């Protein structure tokens, strides 16, 4: 009686003593009746025994000492106070994000506040049109270069402090 697939799957477990009694007895009966099956089981057993030929392993004598040394280094890292840069690591990207938003806001808001509305279409030279359009900015460019943000600019618009410049 040849071994079934299930029998073959059980063979290793049988050799390891991991089958329940009933299944083990059934398989053992088949093995006793079938020399080929018995030879196959024996080959499985012998191949397993050959693992004993693997070289014996001896860890280095300093293994424990080296492990404790690594542990000491790990402990130093574990208990060291966190550098300020790490503690506030969220601060830098947040600052950059705020600066970008501010720059966008200044550019956008400034274009409404500083630039006059576009003049009606004319047949004038486009370059001339551009000059006319941006003349107020060009005339005050030197002053605007000193301004860092729009709020600062707005804060200068206080006639009671700085006089009225609307005419100039």
């Amino acid at each position, binding site marked *: 009686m040849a071994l079934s697939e299930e029998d073959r799957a059980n063979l290793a477990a049988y050799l390891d003593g991991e089958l329940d009694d009933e299944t083990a007895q059934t398989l053992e009966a088949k093995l006793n009746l079938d020399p080929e099956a018995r030879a196959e089981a024996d080959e499985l057993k012998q191949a397993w025994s050959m693992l004993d030929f693997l070289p014996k392993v001896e860890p280095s004598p300093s293994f*424990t000492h080296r492990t404790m040394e690594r542990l000491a280094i790990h402990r130093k890292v574990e208990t060291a106070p966190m550098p300020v840069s790490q503690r506030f690591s969220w601060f830098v990207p947040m600052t950059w994000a705020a600066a970008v938003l501010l720059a966008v806001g200044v550019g956008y808001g400034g274009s409404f506040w500083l630039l006059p509305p576009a003049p009606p279409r004319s047949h004038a030279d486009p370059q001339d049109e551009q000059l006319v359009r941006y003349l107020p900015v060009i005339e005050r460019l030197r002053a605007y270069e000193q301004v860092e943000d729009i709020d600062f600019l707005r804060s200068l618009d206080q006639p009671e402090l700085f006089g009225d410049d609307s005419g100039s």
Partner: protein
Amino acid sequence: MAQLCDEAAVATTGESSTQLALRDPDVRLMLRVRDDDESAFAELVELYHHRLVTVMHHLIGNADEAEDLAQEVFLRVFRGRKKYHPRAKFSTWLFTIANNLALNALRTRQRKPVIPLNVRDSGPLGPRPAEQLVRDPKGQPVHRMQQQELAAVVQQALETLNERQRVAVVLNKFEDMNYAEIAEVMELSTKAVKSLLSRARENLRQVLKGYIYMDSQPNDNGVQE
């Protein structure tokens, strides 16, 4: 302090940590490690490093890497000490960590094959058998040569198994773990372990067929050990 830890563990796990500590002295040691007792940790390293290095060596096939991996296992044990809750034998937990590290290492090796430069690491393959015979005309090393050859052949046979089969084989053979224990370490069902070992042993039989009777005679008696 150790008693306080035990009581705290009882409160957390329900009941078994004190019982486990009584049954498994290594669990008691680990509870001390949880309390930052480094001498307890050194004791655990001393107790387990031989077994761990052996397992890693048979899995990886490289002595230096095996020691590095074994060290890493211990360091992970230490790093994870505050979260340690004894639910099983300490060795089960230890080898679970070892299993994860070993599988990662084996998978990395598959992606980046390592060519051993050290003759020792490639197995005792120094002089080829014919050359050794010429060097030793008395013929004494034949038996030793056979053993060395067989060692290399068996190591290569082990390397034909996939990672999980290899781990299951090494744990069963060299750690004497039964299927249930292997299942716990590898986080598989017992049925899956049975299937792994069945295929692994069949693969080994096929690869080692030509060498099986080199050192012994076939056995025609009852086959169960």
